[in-house]
């Protein structure tokens, strides 16, 4: 049953990923990215990470992507124009990618034969409670520090997007 789920959503994710690449218009790319994210959320659930799955939907699928779409709309970014400037990326990109995937797949298959099977419901560690506990004990410092990051983000947005420097 969860095999089926995995296969379905893995396929969805991959398809959306490809779609992201092949669509010419940013909006459709954004939508397909959302697709990827939601399917990933499902896979998270399968892996027993309910909190992350939720966060994935809210933070990513929600906040971040909304932001993206908002900007796309704001700048009404049109479809892409073909360009021949990035010759290296154009020609070397694909072979490199194939090589990359091949290498990774080879490494994983070769080196990690004996990983446990994934069974839905076998382990439900990732509850909000546990996460919360961890965040405020073991990972107190990163949790506090990362707030600085948010600050910076605000600051950056203010600096760069503010109308005029008085």
């Amino acid at each position, binding site marked *: 049953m969860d095999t089926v789920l995995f296969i379905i959503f893995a396929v969805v994710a991959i398809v959306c990923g490809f779609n992201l690449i092949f669509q010419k218009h940013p909006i459709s790319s954004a939508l397909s990215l959302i697709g990827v994210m939601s399917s990933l959320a499902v896979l998270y659930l399968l892996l027993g990470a309910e909190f992350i799955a939720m966060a994935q939907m809210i933070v990513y699928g929600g906040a971040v992507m909304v932001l993206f779409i908002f900007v796309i709309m704001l700048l009404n970014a049109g479809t892409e124009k073909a360009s021949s*400037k*990035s010759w*290296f*990326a154009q020609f*070397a*990109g694909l072979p*490199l990618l194939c090589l*990359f995937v091949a*290498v990774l797949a080879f*490494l994983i298959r070769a080196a990690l034969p004996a990983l446990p099977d994934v069974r839905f419901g076998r382990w439900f560690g990732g509850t909000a409670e546990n996460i919360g506990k961890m965040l405020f004990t073991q990972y107190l410092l990163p949790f506090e520090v990362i707030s600085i990051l948010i600050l910076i983000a605000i600051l950056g947005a203010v600096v760069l997007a503010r109308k005029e420097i008085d």
Partner: protein
Amino acid sequence: MTLWLIPFFPLIGFLLNGLFGKRLSKSVVNLIAIGSVAVSFLYVAALLFKLSPLTTAYSEHYFTWIQSGFLQIGFDLFVDRLTAVMLLIVTGVGLLIHIYSIGYMAHEGGYYRFFSYLNLFMFFMLLLVLSSNLLIMFVGWEGVGLCSYLLVGFYFTEDYATNAGNKAFIVNRIGDFGFSLGIFLTVITFKTLDFEKIAAGVANMPVETTAGVLTAITLLLFVGATGKSAQIPLYVWLPDAMAGPTPVSALIHAATMVTAGVYMIARVSFLYDHAPHAMNVVALIGLLTAVFAATIGVTQNDIKKVFAYSTVSQLGYMFLGVGVGAYSAGIFHLMTHAFFKALLFLGAGSIIHRLSGEQDLRHMGGLRKAMPITFYTLGVASLAISGFPGFSGFFSKDAILSAVYAHSPWMFWIGVFTAGLTAFYVFRAYFLAFFGNYRGHHHPHESPAVMTVPLIVLAVLAAGGGFINVPAWLSTVFPLAEHANASAMIISASFGILGIVIAWFLYVARPAMAESLKTAAGPLYTLIANKYYVDELYTGFIVKPLEGISRFVLWRGVDEGLIDGALVNGLGRTVRGWGGLLRRLQSGSIRNYAAWVFAGSLLVIVVLGLAGGFR
């Protein structure tokens, strides 16, 4: 007793005149210059009188000049009978010529310069003569070379003079190249340069081991001698050196400096005695030079050139003498030659002086009325050089020739022939100058006393100098080899007289005949008249090619083209070229950059991951 005073006086003279001469009046300059030489002449006389009989050498050590490792070269002077002879010749003749110069240079510019140079020359010459080791001798040797350069180029605004000066110096340098190598080899062989120590070293040295190296040393030294004493193949500078003022020609290029080579060989005779092959070479070169130069002398029209070639030829005689082992004869001839050749030059000088610079025999003639003293004194000199019986040249030349005869007859015959030739061309010049009608357009009359007196003194010496038995005096230095034979004496004398007669016949009795002979000789004459084109050969085959190679091959080609252009700057260009290529990575396009980063990370993954995996 202090030997160093002898060269010291002229040095003082040089310094005074050189530094302050400009501000001094001529008379003061004269006083300093002549005074210094006179003092050192008198000092030499007194010294020799004190030291006589001087059967053993007397030497003095002053300070160590150069010391490095085993090599220790002192600033030492020493005097033996050989030195004594040279000292007297140098200071005596030098003094006379100094006096003569007062008159000759009276109207020249750079008066003080001239005399300071002369004094400097005297200093170096005396140093050369007095030195008790090869290096000090080399110092004097180079020094006189320098003075010769300075004095030959005395008229430095004239190109012919400066060219002659350079030629003199550089050709001498080539000779000194050999000399210095000889010195190095001597040091390697004997670990010293002192004549006495070397002599001792040679004495207790098994011949079979040393013959080779000694031959090498002596030949190298002889190269030096050929340079200084104008022997084949390095004689070319001497005729040009006549560009200098005539007293200079007399003093340096006739009486003293050019004989230094002969003196040097005599000085190190103990080496030559053990190097028979080298001796043969010396004798041969000497003989060859003698006859070669004599033939050229026949054809010259410039009176000084005639005497110059005769000097070369006479020097050849001397080398012939020392070459066959008759050192004392060589020195003997050196002395007599100093007298009569100096006299010849001074006489010529007085003519030239009077004709205000005219040196061409064809524009002289009939001067015997106008310049009687010059006429007679020059006559004496000519007879002396021709080996006319009773005159000095007769004895010395005979001493050499008889030794040569004992050594090898064929050399003797060539020598005798040369003697005749000498007599011929000297008298040719003499007759052309004094007999017949005056062909010039000046109004000649006798020179002032300051010039004639030295002439007279020298004439006396040239006439009677032969009666000084130099070989006997030198017997303590060179074992006396007595092989005077009457036949040789007669033959050489008669050849000389024959030469004189022919000259008289051709240039006084039947002047027209000379011309017809010239035309008859044709190409041979032109060849000889152009000095066998030796200068042209040297220029064409050595100087010009060297210049060309240096400019076009070495400088433009190798230096600027290959090393700097191709290698150094080429390397720079290559590096910058690579830089240009690497810059191309920076295409400015973000996607390309990402692709590079991605490629790089793949590389790293492969290196770290797979390379690890395949281990």
